[in-house]
């Protein structure tokens, strides 16, 4: 799966399952999803479960930090670094 495909899957999942109020358009790769309130703590927990199940990447508790999940681009970078 390419970076773009992963980014699109994550953005769609955020819109479909996580964002409290679905945004007009899926968030772009550099949108600060936590700061903008698109992803709260429970949303982040679900997003990690999605990454593990859908993409087969295990996330360790110590990796759950802002720099790895601040944007979709950061999450893609984390996923690719673990592959």
């Amino acid at each position, binding site marked *: 799966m390419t970076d773009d495909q992963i980014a699109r899957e994550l953005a769609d999942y955020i819109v479909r399952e996580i964002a*409290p109020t679905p945004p007009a358009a899926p968030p772009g790769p550099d949108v600060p999803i936590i*700061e903008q309130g698109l992803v*709260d*703590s*429970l949303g982040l927990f679900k997003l990690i479960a999605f990454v593990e199940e859908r993409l087969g990447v295990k996330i360790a508790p110590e990796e759950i930090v802002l720099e790895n999940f601040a944007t979709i681009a950061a999450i893609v970078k984390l996923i690719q670094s673990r592959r």
Partner: protein
Amino acid sequence: MIFGPGFPRSQDELRENLFRLFQRSFQSLAKSGHSLKVYRSSFELYGRLAAERWAQLTIWPEETALIERFAREAGLPGEPQAMVQKSLLLHAAAATWRRMLQGLGRDALLRLCVARGEEHLRAALDAKRGVLIAHCHTVFAPLFWSWLEHKGIAPGVTLGHWAWEQGRKAGDRTDPKRAVPEMARELFAASQTLRAGGLAHVFGDGVQGSRQTEIAFCNRRRGFRSTFAEMAVAADATTLSAAVSMGADGRMTMEIEPSFTDDASLPRAERVERLVREYAARLEKRWQRDAAQLPWGDMTTHLRFPAL
């Protein structure tokens, strides 16, 4: 102050100063280890004071107004004045004794506690499916963890705990850049604990966060967070509810209610919503039985929700 600078300007001020003196004396006894000798007497004294209208209006004017408004607008049964008295007593007692109670040894604490429904918790833990306790905020709620410890039950993970650790700033809890990853790590740890058959705790009546189910509750359209239900469903854990009540005589009751109804064959979202609604129904009954146990902050929060 009667025992400090200045002279009391009125009889009410003199009485208030005497109350503060008593409270400080009780608090210093609580720290010195001679506390239990005056524990019951302090409840009696606080109870008598809280029943006096002058004390309500002099020592606790804003709190009295809040409790009266809350009792009226939440549509709770019983005399508002009875709730005012008990709420003032419990808050004065909590400010004096809560820390001391948390530090008590096993025998001393268990002498002051009655547990109702302990068998529900034991049975759920024995089933090794993971047990999630959905708590509610009461003035003496932290004593539940002391009780667990003295009963030899591993407390497991408590969600939201990081925010209250020493050294945390109040702003940390509201800054999403700090709070979201911290809470997600806790959810992760709780999820692992539940999957391993352990125990996790969540306060189901918290109101922070964006994902909420709106429910008609005590004359308000109130949002309930679904975190506890999402966790329970994700880990397929048993959900119980629990609360700590303090009596006017200083004796506590740990109340653990039977497990929630859950049907694993239903879609996830429906299971979550059912658990949240059952929690709200249990909480409403609890408030109707004894809302004086609520912290004042929770009364204020409830009144901020739109009226039905």
